[in-house]
């Protein structure tokens, strides 16, 4: 009777093990693997297919934020600015909600893995949401709403900086720069001056991380607003190193601001460290710790040139998403490692206890031990989530043009100075004394 019962129990456990292998393990595929198809379709400029691929991922629950962020980006690429902003607004609301600590999620991250925590977006990702919302509004011709985002950003950035005072790279320098332009468009030159100043300070503070300093066009903007009557404003922009901004402020001219999402931003891969337990009866057979590791993708465009007829402007790098993400991971890694080690101890103790309790159950006991071993190993996954469709970096060029409708041309250059592509942007309306915002993306590295 007893052997029959053990056999029955063994069959049930074997079934359970098979189910675990079939359903649980594939489900444990990391986020960065799942999102690859979305990235591929986007790189091919097939946004509709990318949106479908994103929907297929069914990012919800703890991953809901990733759905909002990536969908917002895709809709922006598609030129559906209103729908894009709906997604980004949902992301902002969720960020606010997730800023409160969940005890259950914290416990889950120590018991199972870090993906049990709802993804709230990294500091720099949260700041960039405001930039994209602003750009969506600007490209819809809605300056006042863009200015609302700029004002909200001011509070958000302050709260993020308050949490980690040493993270000077989280100054949101690019967003500040953009805010300055938004405020100027809204006719709030004092606010513009303040944000240009903060942008200059932010770029200087993060230069050790990004490797570049203050964009020359930004310096010129700040100079123009801080010393409006200074003679230095007459210096032609080209002397500042082929930089976009035409400093002479001709009243009949407007300006085209061209922003490029360049390449795909960082991806995180799983770095799984495994060690065979010399004494497997006293815990897991395999001791494993999974940590995220940084994977930088190449950015295809080294620079671009924006032109109309004989007028042209070269791009400047204004945001290095890769460098900031790398630094951010480096800063977070000690904490992530600490949690992973704590998890290892907890799981090992649990497996040890299970094995101890089932050691007299014969074949069934062996299976129980095996299941608990597999469970502990399979559940150890690194949190590789990130806003995948962020660019590797952002390039910006500004070209002063007479008021009217213009057909623009952009030459994209690779790192060897070769032309990667030429794209035309027709019927761009430029109004005197105003800025016209145009954007595009170039993700494919070949």
């Amino acid at each position, binding site marked *: 009777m007893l052997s029959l019962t053990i056999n029955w129990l063994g069959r049930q456990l074997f079934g359970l093990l098979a189910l675990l292998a079939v359903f649980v393990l594939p489900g444990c595929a990391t986020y960065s693997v799942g999102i690859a198809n979305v990235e591929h379709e986007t790189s091919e400029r097939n946004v509709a297919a990318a949106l479908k691929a994103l929907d297929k991922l069914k990012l919800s629950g703890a991953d809901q934020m990733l759905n909002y962020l990536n969908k917002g980006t895709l809709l922006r690429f598609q030129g559906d600015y209103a729908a894009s902003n709906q997604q980004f607004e949902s992301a902002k609301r969720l960020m606010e909600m997730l*800023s409160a*600590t*969940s005890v259950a999620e914290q416990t889950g991250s120590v018991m199972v893995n870090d993906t049990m925590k709802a993804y709230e977006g990294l500091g720099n990702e949260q700041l960039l949401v405001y930039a994209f919302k602003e750009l969506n509004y600007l490209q819809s011709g809605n300056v006042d709403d863009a200015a*609302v985002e700029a*004002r909200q950003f001011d509070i958000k950035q302050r*709260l993020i900086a*308050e949490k980690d005072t040493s993270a000077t790279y989280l100054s949101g320098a690019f967003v500040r720069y953009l805010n300055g332009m938004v405020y100027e468009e809204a006719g*709030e030159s004092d606010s513009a001056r303040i944000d240009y100043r903060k942008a200059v300070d932010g770029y200087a503070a993060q230069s050790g991380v990004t490797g570049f300093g203050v964009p020359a066009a930004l310096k010129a903007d700040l100079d123009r607003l801080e010393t409006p009557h200074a003679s230095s404003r007459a210096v032609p922009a080209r002397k500042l190193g082929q930089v976009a901004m035409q400093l002479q402020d001709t009243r009949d001219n407007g300006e085209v601001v061209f922003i490029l999402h360049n390449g795909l931003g960082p991806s995180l891969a799983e770095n799984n460290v495994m060690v065979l337990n010399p004494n497997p009866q006293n815990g897991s057979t395999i001791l494993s710790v999974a940590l995220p590791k940084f994977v930088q993708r190449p950015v295809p465009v080294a620079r671009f040139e924006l032109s109309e007829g004989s007028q042209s402007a070269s791009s400047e790098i204004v945001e290095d998403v890769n460098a900031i993400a790398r630094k951010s991971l480096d800063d977070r890694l000690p904490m992530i490692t600490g949690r992973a080690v704590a998890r290892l101890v907890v799981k090992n103790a649990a497996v040890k206890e299970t094995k101890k309790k089932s050691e007299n159950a014969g074949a069934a006991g062996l299976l129980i031990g095996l299941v608990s071993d597999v469970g502990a190993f399979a559940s150890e996954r690194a949190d590789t989530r990130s806003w995948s469709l962020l660019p590797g970096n952002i390039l910006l060029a500004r070209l002063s043009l007479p008021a009217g409708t213009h057909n623009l041309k952009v030459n994209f250059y690779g790192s060897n100075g070769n032309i990667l592509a030429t794209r035309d942007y027709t019927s761009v309306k430029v109004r005197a004394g105003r800025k016209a915002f145009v954007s595009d993306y170039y993700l494919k590295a070949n």
Partner: protein
Amino acid sequence: MIAKKKAWVMVAAVVAAVILAGCSTQVKRVGVEEVRDISGTWNDTDSRLVSEEMIRDSLSGGWIDRFGMTSKKAPAVIIGNIRNLSQEHINTNTFVNDLERAFVNSGRVDVVASKNERGDIREERVDMDLNASEASRKEMGKEAGADFMLIGSINTIIDASDSEQVRFYQVDLTLVSLADNRKAWNGQKKLKKDIKNAKFR
């Protein structure tokens, strides 16, 4: 045995009812004056408080009588731009429409169609010219011109740290004479909120 089965069925029915009730959308009608602050951002109560203050102040201010004494007619107002200079996406139409309604219903102030509204009306008049009967057709060039333009702004100051925020809103509305740019009336409403967000969820 049958009694046991019945008990199980009843338990299952109760559980199902509870689960299904949790899944269904629930709608409860509430009075428009009921104060319900959920997130702490601008809401219907703020808009209503602004409307009430602006209506009371504008209709009791002396500008209507002063204009009546010199012009011997009711002042005509056109709604201009109310700029949102706050940190929130605020729909200003709610309290501006309330004020407009109060002007019209008071019988003491005329309101003429705004820049955005009159396009359709002019289009209709052009259409009438072609299609309406002679007796009912309305001529062009007989629109009432405004004496004052209502302009204004919403400004905010937000002081935030960790999970606490103090939000201060200031709504300013001004009636500017279209004849000489003089400001005939200035209305103002200030609102302040202390918001504490949950630290745990």
